[in-house]
Each structure stands twice: as structure tokens, then as C-alpha cells.
């Protein structure tokens, strides 16, 4: 299949108009010695029927049907209202570029403005951007921003922050030669507040922590922020499961200065890890150091309200090497989906969603913790994830459950050698009581 729209005749007329006899002539500026004088070694062309068959074949290799999964750990299975798919696939949303021409991009821009508003409402902070790549790179951008704001060499990072986010931060800041100090966790699964206190000082730009954290435990944002503020370090909260914000107090209200995270939970399918949706918000005094596109409200020459990309003097296309971030293309369509998701659920629906996650996860936690041999690794408060320790090697547990068509959770020992035979189990509103009971029943049998 080719997507060319020229007829045979058009082609001839255009060559004549240009004054050439063959398209090849237009490539004369490419030196002969670097021209590729053969066809690319690429399969195809495939027609629609063939390409669909090709991918159906691959899809079948995924074997993922009918499995009952309790995987979370940074990617969450939530309900998606039918209107989100229906509306977000409209060509007018899918096929424009970044809204450089606001007069013909109000759909994208107004939606982004609504997204920013929703993120501020969720996080309790003043300003939000129009999206970042994902939670991990968002965390890295937050560290860079905090460092630009405070210019101090020390960054405290909770070990209970998603390991991929920690690694990404490390990659992004590697050449800044910062002193990244990892702060462990205590028996609640939360950041070790004593250790945090001990590490915090005038050299510290920020403390970065996740809540609910990678183990599912809810951090004490207030305490952490107080400790940070004592040295005017920035309290940087990462939210990987923002459905929790339907029931947990806004981090900004509790003292966080920067809130960043992953909003995949908001209407973005699991998609084997991407595209997802990074978001970030902060206090308004940090705006000059804030990364990413921002949409603002203004008026047209007739006084009609409209929206534009604004404060772009922070950005690469104006400021070049002095930009607050190199980001250009972000995750606009994912932000659109998140906006649709949140607005469709609405205040009541979102509250209910959070509440059901909380209830179901606690029900599961209760059921599992009663099973002989299985223990809860941590005693902190949780939202929709928690860590279990199993009496048998994790690999064995995992594979026995797979035979029963259950993916029980995310094994921790690769990334946390100290958490042998432990796994994070995630329960959301998508799990029915019978799913949870089945998990418990199977586990009872095998432990």
C-alpha cells in the first residue's frame, strides 16, 4: 500500500512544471558514493489484509488472554469509559501537530488547559504543565528542576521510589555529578524518617519520594515536607498511582513543592508500557524553572476567550541550550485521554473509583494475610498495593500460579535483594470478589 495522492498525469505535469524529466534529478545533490543503489532489505509491501494477519499472528504469541493478573508496580489496570476511546480517536485530536497555531487548535489547547486544571486540583498545587513523557522521566525532570532552583549538590531519593524512576533520575543527572543519596525504608514500608532527618542538610536540593510508594505504603508527606522545608529543600512527591488522589489529601496541601508522576491510570491502556503520561505541578513561584509546555488563557482581537501555548521563553525553541528542558513533542493525546477520563468520571465517580480500589485492596490484603505461611512484609497504610512475603522461593510461587492462570504480582527480589520471596500485589476496581477469592484459594492450596 502506498499513500501517494498523485495521478499519473499529475506526476507528468509536475515534472514539466519543475522542468525536469525524472524525479531522480531532484536527488542530484546527494553524492553518488553515498547513494543506496539497491532496494532496502525490508519485507512488504503488505496489503491491509496481510498486515492485519501478520500482527494477529504476533498478538497470539502474547498468550495473554484469560489470565487473572494482580500486577501493578507502576502500570495499573483500571476501567476506561467507552467515551474515552470513542472521542479520543477522532481525527481532529489524533492528527494535528503541537498547537503552534492557536487559532486553529483550540480543541487541543482548551483540553490541555482543562488537564492542567485537573492536575492542579488533584495535586493541590498552583500550576501544572501539559504533560511529560512518563512518570520516570517526570521524576528526573523534577530533580533537574529542583537542582536548578536550589543549586545544591545533594538529592535524597527514597529507596521506596519506583526502581525505574530511580534509575532514570540517575541517567538524567549523571553528568551533573550530584550526590544522590538513597534513603531506606522502615518496617512500615515507608521512607525511614530518622535516616531522612539525618541526611537532610543545607546541601540538599530536594527529597524525592513516592506515595503511595513502590511497596504500596502511603508516605507521611507532611512530615517529609516539614523536614525538607527546615533546610528549604524541596519536597518532591512522585505519584505513580494517581487514583489514590481521589481519597488521599492533595500532596501540595500536605507540603509538597513539586508533584510529578505517571497518569497512565487515567484512561490510558496498559499498552505494554507505553505511551503513558507524565505530569508535573509545582508552586507558582517556580514557574520560570518549570519544564514542558504550558497552556494559558487569553483573548482574541474581538475579546473572545482562547488558549495558547505560553511562557515559551522557558523552552528549547526559544531558549535553546538554556531551556528548562529539551522536551518538544510530549504526550498530548494521552493527556487528552486522561482529561476525558477524569471529566467523565467526575467528582463522584473518581471518589468512588478511589474508594473501591482502597476497599478491594484491603479485602485482598485481609484474605491473603490469613493464609498460613504468607505474611505482610510491611505494616504501613496502603492504597491499592501491598507486599506479601511467601514461604517458598518466589520463582516457584510465580510459576505455580501461572499454571493456574494467575499472575500474582511483581516479584521484588531482582531490584530489592533484601526482599527475598516478596512481591507487590495490586488490586483495583477491575478485580471482582471472586478473583480475589480465587487467588486466596489457590495460594492456600500451595503454601
Amino acid at each position: 500500500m502506498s499513500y501517494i495522492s498523485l495521478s499519473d498525469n499529475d506526476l507528468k505535469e509536475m515534472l514539466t512544471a519543475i522542468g525536469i524529466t525524472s524525479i531522480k534529478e531532484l536527488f542530484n545533490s546527494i553524492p553518488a558514493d553515498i547513494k543506496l543503489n539497491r532496494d532496502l532489505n525490508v519485507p512488504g509491501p503488505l496489503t491491509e489484509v496481510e498486515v492485519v494477519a501478520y500482527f494477529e499472528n504476533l498478538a497470539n504469541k502474547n498468550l495473554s488472554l484469560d489470565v487473572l493478573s494482580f500486577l501493578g508496580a507502576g502500570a495499573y489496570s483500571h476501567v476506561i469509559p467507552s467515551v474515552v476511546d470513542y472521542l479520543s480517536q477522532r481525527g481532529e485530536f489524533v492528527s494535528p501537530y503541537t498547537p503552534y497555531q492557536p487559532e486553529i487548535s483550540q480543541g487541543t489547547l482548551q483540553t490541555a488547559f482543562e488537564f492542567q486544571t485537573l492536575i492542579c486540583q488533584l495535586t493541590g498545587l498552583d500550576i501544572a504543565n501539559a504533560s511529560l513523557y512518563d512518570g520516570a522521566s517526570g521524576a528526573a525532570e523534577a530533580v533537574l528542576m529542583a537542582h536548578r532552583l536550589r543549586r545544591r549538590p545533594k538529592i535524597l531519593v527514597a529507596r521506596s521510589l519506583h526502581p525505574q524512576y530511580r534509575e532514570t533520575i540517575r541517567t538524567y543527572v549523571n553528568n551533573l555529578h550530584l550526590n544522590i543519596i538513597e534513603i531506606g525504608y522502615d518496617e512500615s514500608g515507608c521512607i525511614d524518617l530518622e535516616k531522612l532527618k539525618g541526611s537532610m542538610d543545607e546541601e540538599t536540593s530536594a527529597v524525592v519520594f513516592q506515595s503511595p510508594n513502590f511497596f504500596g505504603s502511603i508516605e507521611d508527606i507532611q512530615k517529609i515536607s516539614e523536614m525538607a522545608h527546615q533546610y528549604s529543600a524541596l519536597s518532591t512527591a512522585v505519584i505513580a498511582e494517581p487514583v489514590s488522589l481521589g481519597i488521599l489529601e492533595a500532596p501540595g496541601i500536605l507540603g509538597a513543592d513539586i508533584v510529578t508522576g505517571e497518569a497512565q491510570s487515567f484512561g490510558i491502556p496498559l499498552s505494554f508500557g507505553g505511551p503513558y503520561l507524565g505530569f508535573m505541578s509545582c508552586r507558582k513561584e517556580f514557574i520560570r524553572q518549570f519544564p514542558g509546555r504550558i497552556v494559558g488563557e487569553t483573548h482574541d482581537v474581538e475579546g473572545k476567550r482562547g488558549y495558547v501555548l505560553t511562557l515559551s521563553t522557558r523552552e528549547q525553541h526559544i531558549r535553546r541550550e538554556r531551556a528548562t528542558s529539551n522536551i518538544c513533542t510530549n504526550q498530548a493525546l494521552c493527556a487528552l485521554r486522561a482529561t476525558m477520563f477524569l471529566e467523565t468520571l467526575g467528582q463522584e465517580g473518581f471518589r468512588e473509583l478511589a474508594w473501591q480500589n482502597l476497599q478491594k485492596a484491603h479485602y485482598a490484603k485481609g484474605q491473603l494475610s490469613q493464609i498460613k505461611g504468607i505474611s505482610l512484609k510491611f505494616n504501613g497504610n496502603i492504597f491499592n498495593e501491598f507486599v506479601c512475603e511467601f514461604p517458598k522461593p518466589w520463582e516457584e510461587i510465580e510459576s505455580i500460579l501461572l499454571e493456574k492462570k494467575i499472575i500474582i504480582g511483581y516479584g521484588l527480589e531482582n531490584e530489592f535483594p533484601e526482599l527475598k520471596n516478596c512481591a507487590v500485589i495490586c488490586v483495583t476496581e477491575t478485580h471482582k470478589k471472586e478473583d480475589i477469592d480465587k487467588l486466596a484459594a489457590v495460594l492456600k492450596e500451595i503454601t
Partner: protein
Amino acid sequence: MIREPLIFEISGEGKRGFRLPPLDIPVTINLLNEVPTREKVDGFPQVSETEIVRHFTRLSQTNYCVDIGFYPLGSCTMKYNPKINEKVAAMDSFVRTHPSVPLKFSQGNLEILKTTEELLSEITGMDAFTLQPAAGAQGELVGMLLIRAYLEDLGNPRKIVLIPDSAHGTNPSSAHLSGYTVQEIKSNERGTVDVNDLARMMSEDVAALMITNPNTLGIFEDEIKKIAGIVHSKGGLVYMDGANMNALVGHCRPGDMDVDVIHLNLHKTFSTPHGGGGPGSGPVGIKSILEPYLPVPLIERHGEGLHLNFNPSKKTIGRIRGFYGNFLVIVKALTYILSLGPQGLSEVAEIAVLNANYIRKNLEKDYHLKYDSPTLHECVFSDKFQKEHGVLNIDIAKRLIDFGMHPPTMSFPLIVHGALMVEPTETESKRDLDMFIAAMKTIAIEAKENPEVIKSAPHGSYVRRLDETKAARQPVLKWTPERTD
């Protein structure tokens, strides 16, 4: 036309847009006793499903897009996005796979990723690819971090990155983010890299040259091998911004031009839709010397199966994002590559270049062309002639909107003042090209005869020219309940 309110402005207690199935377990109260909670998210809207659908359907119609018409936004390669790509990427199995499933549950997905890596290597002539970067700019960052890691490994990461003055803004920004100081190289009167200037500036402090080819003027850097030679001779590496790969695909390969690192924009050359600003995908291709530094995880073929290697070598730059890349975008790009096949891909470049030259030929008398070198897939006019009548590139851009077309790029290249960078892409019809040419010619005449109509444009859009200065001076960045508007 009815003005579309913000959703918050039509919110009302009691309206519901969605319901969850009732909770099917016994309720436990006081679960979060010690934790600060909230009853509701203040300000969250409450609307019906009917209102949601109308809100977004109406808003969507205020957007211009490729599905509606000609979109010659230079450097952005706004080609038609085939609908089969969307259909394939919407297959249940792709959409529903959790990224952390045991490997045997994702062999199909991994095969897609690996195949795409391999095909992009063939298309670009590079040795290996990582598909992780979420967009071009992140690709640049990864590419520069790879170079840095390589040089560091050799003992010295070096300090400087050379970038032509015609480059896209992300190039210097990414170089900076990778810890380098940027030095600009001048373009010569042909619009290409001044080789003498480069030779003069190249030193053992220079880590790399970031070059775009064809460059942002649409001109092929025909001395690319010489340029690479100069850089390599001092131990530096050559990074190519592959955003303009649409001009080359099937005709020449960056790998054959002695380029060491390249990023591609799948959302440009490989037809994945831009979504109003993403998601994109910015894979990075490398020569084998850089392979030990690739970001984790690597996708590896092990006999029949595929495997994710999270700890390939100590030398890796590490992780640059969560999971493995913008998977669904990659699915779309692979669909496109397979749909086109070898001849189709090479035809892409041919027709893209033909269309651009057809426009250039037809408009070069009406609009100033600073450089008269041959151009490939795009060309950069300027407002020089029109400025005499007080009409700037932005005015021309806004006036084009009245003709039902998207304006060209104006924000760069910085070396052309009042730039109008026109990239038609290969998917456009002659009728669309002719309508654009006619509109531009009309505007050129209007500039002389009736400049006001241009300067007050657009006239027919949902909003007219917006006050961007006000937006920046008195930023209103979210809705608040106090506002009345």
C-alpha cells in the same frame, strides 16, 4: 458559532458521566485513620455523558488537522496517518499487555520491538537501535549520553558539542542537558555547514557534531563524509538529527555517511500521528562502537524466544524512562514500514521531494528564497518581499488559515529571518499543492494591495488572532471557581 465553555463551567451537583459496578465485597470503614484524606477532589467537574461527548466533539471541530487538509508545517513531516496503523495498534492483545508480565506473555510484543529495531537499522544503515526514547528530543538526549559514555570510557567525556546555526532548538538543549557546552557553526552561503569553520572549531575538546541532514533548509549536506572525517579525525563523533529522514528513505542511509548516532522521529517519517503534540517515538540508531552503552533493557533474541536484558553491561547509560518505549507508537510505525515495503519507502522520499520542489518552483518568484541550493523535501521561504509592505511571516501564516490551510513553520531556522518553512510531504494531492500555491500567490498580491487584510487575519476561524503577549504577561494557567468569564 456556540462558544464552548470549560467543562468546569457546566458542572452541576448530581450529574454523572459514568458509573462503576457496585462494590462486591463487604465494606470496611476507617481504613485510613492515620492518613490525611479528602472527601472529594475540590473543583472536579460533574457532567453527564451527553455533555462529555458534546464538549469534546465540539472542541475537536475547532482543531485543524491532517485528516482535514494540507499541513505543510516544515520539519514536522505532517503526512497522512494511515488508518490501518490505528487499527493494528488497537488490537486487544497489544493494548492490554501489562509491561511486567512474565516474558512468555509478551513474546509477540517483543518480536514487534525487535523487528522494528532491525528494520530501522537496515533503513538507516546503522548497527543497532534502541526504541526507548519517547520523542525526538529524548532521542537526542540518549544519543548524546551514549557519546558521552563512550568518550568517558576512553578517558575524557570532552566539553563541547558543535551545532550548526540552522539546527532545531532541541539540539542545543539536549547537548546542554548531556553536560556539554554548545558552540555554533556558521552556515555558508550555500546554506550548508561551513567546512572551514568546522575544521577551525574542531578540537579534542569537542565531543561531537550534531548535524541535521538534509538540514532544516531542506538542503542536503553534500560534504557530509568530509565533515564526518574532520570530526572523527579529532576523535569526536557525529550525531545526526534524523527528523528529515523523509527526504532520504530508500535513497541513502546515514550509516553510509559515517554518522555514528542518529535519532528518528517515528511520528514524522514513519507516519504515526502526532496527536496534537504526542505521543511520539524517537528511536536512536548507533554504530557498534556505542553498543555497550545502550540504555536498558535490551531486547535480545535467545534461540526461538526473546528476552529482556536488564543488566547487559556495566557501561550502559542506564534507564531513560519506564519500561520499553512508546510501544503502541512503534506498532504503528512497523505497520507502516511493512505496508510500504522497499519500493513504497523509496517512493515516499521521491514524492516528498517532488512535491516540495513543485511548490518551490511555483512560489520562488513570489517569496524570497535566501539560499538557491537545490532542496529536497522542504524549502524555506522568507517574508523579505512582503516585509516591505509591513507584512511579516506570522501575518502570512495567519492569512493562510483563512484559505483553509495550515501555515508553514516560522520558529526556525534562525538563519532565515521571517522564515516560512514549507514541507508538503508525499501524501498530498496536486490539487492541494495547487490550492496552497494559489493561496500563497494571492497573499503575495494582497501584501502589496491590501496588507491590512493579512495583518488582521485570520478572519474566519473559531477564534481570531490571540493575544499571546497577554497570555505570557498575566498568566492564567488553570480554571478557578472565582473566575467569571
